[in-house]
């Protein structure tokens, strides 16, 4: 059964020490996980210290609601949608919100968490970001 999927990237607006940023990310993740589980949403979040990339997938209404909620969050800005539409299957079906830690990047050959490219060329970056996240999540598991 198809699901609705949206992929976006945005710039980090969390200020503070690395510990404070970590704490903020953890709080974002725990809120996201409990909300997403209730709303039948799966997805993954990528954070490289400067920018976020996120995949959300699930029923259209639920994705729209969560996306709208995320839009109102001051902890990020410059949201650019990379891809949105029906998807034949869930990529992150096991995860209410998988998290790709920047520290895990080293394990992925020939890929860098360079999100600048995504902001520059949103139209062509959607699938690249999804597969990057897929690799990172698989590597971390």
């Amino acid at each position, binding site marked *: 059964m198809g699901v*609705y999927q*949206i992929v*976006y990237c945005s710039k980090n607006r969390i200020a503070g020490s690395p510990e404070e940023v970590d704490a903020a990310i953890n709080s974002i993740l725990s809120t996201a996980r409990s909300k997403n589980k209730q709303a039948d949403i799966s997805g993954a979040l990528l954070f490289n210290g400067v920018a976020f990339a996120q995949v959300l997938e699930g029923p*259209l209404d639920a*994705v*729209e609601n969560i*996306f*709208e909620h995320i*839009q*109102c969050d*001051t902890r990020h*800005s410059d*949201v*650019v*949608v990379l891809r*949105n*539409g*029906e998807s034949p299957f869930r990529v992150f079906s096991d995860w209410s919100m998988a998290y790709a830690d920047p520290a895990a990047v080293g394990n992925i050959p020939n890929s860098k968490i360079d999100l600048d490219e995504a902001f520059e060329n949103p139209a062509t970056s959607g699938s690249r970001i999804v597969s990057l996240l897929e690799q990172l999540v698989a590597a971390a598991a």
Partner: protein
Amino acid sequence: MSGREAPPMSARPAEAFLICSNEFHIVYYSKGLAPMLHIPQGAAALNSLLLPLLASSPVIDDIGYAAIVARFNQAMLAQAEASHDFLSAVDHQPIHLQIQRVGETHWILSFEDLGARREAENDVAKLAFTDALTGLGNRLRFRQSLALALSEKMVGTRRLALLLIDLDRFKAVNDTLGHPVGDQLLRKVSERLQTVIRQKDMLARLGGDEFAVWIPTSVEDSDGLTRLGARIVDLLGRPFLIEGQQVNIGASVGIAVAPPDGSDYESLTKSADLALYSAKAAGRNLFHFFDSAMERRAQDRRRLELDLRRALTLRQFEIHYRPQVDVESRSLFGLEALLRWQHPERGLLDPSQFITLAEEIALVVPIGRWMLEAACRQAVSWPADIKLVVAVSTPQFASGSLVDSVKQSLSASKLDPARLEIEITERVLLSNETNVVKTLYELRAVGIRIGISNFGTGYASLTKLDSFPFDRIKMDTSLVEDEAASHRAILSAVVAFGASLGVSTMVDGIRTQEQLAKLRADGGRAVQGFLLAPTVSPVELGELFKQAEGAASRNTRETEPPL
């Protein structure tokens, strides 16, 4: 009065009344009576007696019953109406009983729940003050609350800020994605705005895509206002997801602070409006605070607007002409009409100084019509080989009156249609094809020529051009000004393209010998521009013709006779 049920006689189904005879026999009762008196529907049977029925109602207690009976007796004795207010014994809501005569023999007793009426009145009031789409307050509500807040004296550093918010590109969303998506968007906008305001702030939708907030603030908190303005612009500029589609809009915000920018509703709103206008004019997706310079600019604009509205009647417009010259022979073959406004105080103005305003106040079409007529009248007295070129604007083209205006100008002036060339921009050409093509063919049928100007700016594909009837392409100045090699390639390609289609090409804006030399090398023949012939005023025309004649005769002498 034979039916058991009330006929649909009124718009208030809950109306509770009964009709009884002088002998207290009930002959008719309404559907609403049983619920009003909290009695079973069948209790008030026809021909049953009134008093036992009243006594059985839990709404009417003993004291109430006694009072009602007393009132009814009084009414019967006096043969007049009576009324009685009492509190329902069930829920303590006030009930109004009206006793009236019906003819000589019958009485009508009607009960009205005053509490329900008050609630209904409140509901009506609520509706009148609420925006149905978003549930926010509406303009009326906003106006009242702001006026009330402003009526309180602001002491010390206390201030009140008004933010007017206008969505950018909302109309485009409505037009392309439909009203249901537009409505959902407005709801989401209102939800986003609610996340940035506090309990004590007032947010409303004024109508369409206009929202407004007023907030209590203070001199010390001007940073807070800046942050709020920036936050609103940021939030509404973020993508929306509606029915699976990404929707992007923006917002412009104008901010005015009371009392400095206005201490009553009217003046504060005017200031915020000017700030909003300024934010929009500065490129949208911005917030601007009101400053007094805006008021001055607005006054200037208003004055210019008044002057502009009078200019046609006062004959302040005149036409200047830009010569069109053949590169090789240097001979003059055409004159392009250019609008000038002889302003009584500001001097000679060119269209860049007033045409945007003229478009805003819908004066472009009448001015254009005047220019076409006046230019045709003047051109009749020119040497017969000099053509007249008149550019028409998008609004003129869209007005649907262009063909008539051309025909009228030609017949009034008796100008040979073959000497008139109407010039439209490439952009107009691309705007609405079927209508454009139709108009162009109609113009062609009149016998005039058609030129396309600003070519090279609107991305017209060459294949598309093929479907339009036209006689000349005028390339945009930017193709000449820019030294880029690619531009030069376009230029020579268009010249060649024109030659193959059998239409002439012309280059506008030639200012240096170098540009001229390049153009000649590329095969360009016709030019306009300062280098070969500057724009002239009507009085200088005679001199120009004399020179042209001289040049032509020199050319004839210098050129080898054809075989």
